[in-house]
């Protein structure tokens, strides 16, 4: 029978954050800039 008292505390699984690709980083940067511009200009979507 297993002796539970000797059991090591359960370790949190280590989740490695996926490295972002150049395409993903570029998208993120562009989107940030676009939204920032829109917030400044406050344009109407439609005439």
């Amino acid at each position, binding site marked *: 029978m297993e002796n539970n008292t000797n059991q090591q505390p359960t370790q949190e699984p280590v989740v490695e954050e996926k490295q972002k690709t150049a395409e993903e980083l570029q998208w993120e940067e562009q989107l940030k800039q676009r*939204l920032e511009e*829109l917030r400044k200009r406050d344009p109407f979507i*439609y005439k």
Partner: protein
Amino acid sequence: MNIWGISANSHDAAISVWHDKELQFAGHSERYSGIKNDGDLCEGIIADAKKYGEPDLIVWYEKPWLKTVRQLYAGQGYKGKENNIKQYLSKYNLDKPVVFGKHHESHAAAGYYTSGYQDATVIVIDSIGEFECLTVWEGQGNNLKKVYSQSYPNSIGIWFSAMTQRIGLKPNEEEYILMGMAAYGDPNKYKADIYNDFFKTIQSPVIKFKRNLHRGCPDWRPDLISLQDTYDLAAATQQIYTEILQKLSTWARSTLTSKNLIIMGGCALNCVANSEITGDWDNVWIMPNPGDAGSSVGAVAAYFGEQVNWPGAYLGTNMGKKYPVEQTIDLLKTNKIVGVASGRAEFGPRALGHRSLLADPRGPEIKDTVNAIKRRQQFRPFAPAILEEHVHDYFDMPKNIDTSPYMQFVARCTRPDEFPAIIHKDGTSRVQTVGKNDSPGFRKLLENWYSETGCPMLLNTSLNIKGQPMVNNLKHAKDFYKKYNVPVLS
């Protein structure tokens, strides 16, 4: 008597020309000016339209003064001068009598009076015209009666465009890219957030919003900026739009009497959502240009107030000449890919064989070959054009839909391993069926291709230089060849 229908001075300007109630021509201004979604008329389209007759009367697609009031109410300022349509037309030497339609009535009439149905329910969903954003109509014989209307700022179309802008795309132009991106995301991740933050009431047909989105929502959830966030937001937006359309469809089917549905307005281009509601109806008709450009046809149809002969989508610039069937097949065999610019241009946003880049859809390599030319993002799939009688051998079509001549529905491909190039991430394709009554030249091309290869379909994407509207004439075709070194037959 010649009547011109015109939609312009906003976005997607277009002209239709009618002679004795027969539709002779319909063209989209962007094809002539080279400016995508061009809101203004230009010399080229007017010259082309005049080939079919000078106008005795012009029918404008909406009420400019009512629009002026809405713009004032919306905080866009007084635009009475810009909305002086007589002056606007005068700039193009179109000093003719003008009558004015209503924005949503032009949409509804473009659908109903071209449908050939004796009765129908018409759902019009767009961003905004004068005040109306969502209307439901009942067609009976020649009578078209509005039964529900929802006004600005409660606009499903504006919300969809605001979300398009929020994920970094161009509103009022790139909504179809959002639809394509949706297949890469998790629709459930932000669906509840979007419902909670934007929607006040969804009790069909009443769809009300918590905030006016006419200025977009660039401030909403600034933390969501990664590419995967973008996909997840696109997926949630698409899913919510589909659920709204399903609710409207269920309500309309249970409340109104007709078993025929017509969807119009810019939102009718959402082929993914359209495919989810077909089971409610015996027949579904979507005119191939359901947005504002199509209202150049609808305004005149509403003026007549009766069913008109629908001659099909090939209504634009006529490049003449016989469809180059044999040369196209020869080049497809050797080159795998070829452009065709022949006959009359399509009226609508889809290339249907007359201004198309065509390729052999078999095998895994062709997608990269076409992508190298089109330089499109991976989330934008290519589509198949298939002989109508073979569609069920390759695709599970939406319920009650046997034909899709204008690419308005998506269908699951049942042989995905053979045709990876024409299948989207979610396993569907935006199918064009080509029947005996559709383009005779394109039909003949597919028939001959089938008899020579055993394959009844071709990959079909629009013939255009990246960022520009579709090729319209011989000069544009030559420009395409110079740019990409892909032969264009005409």
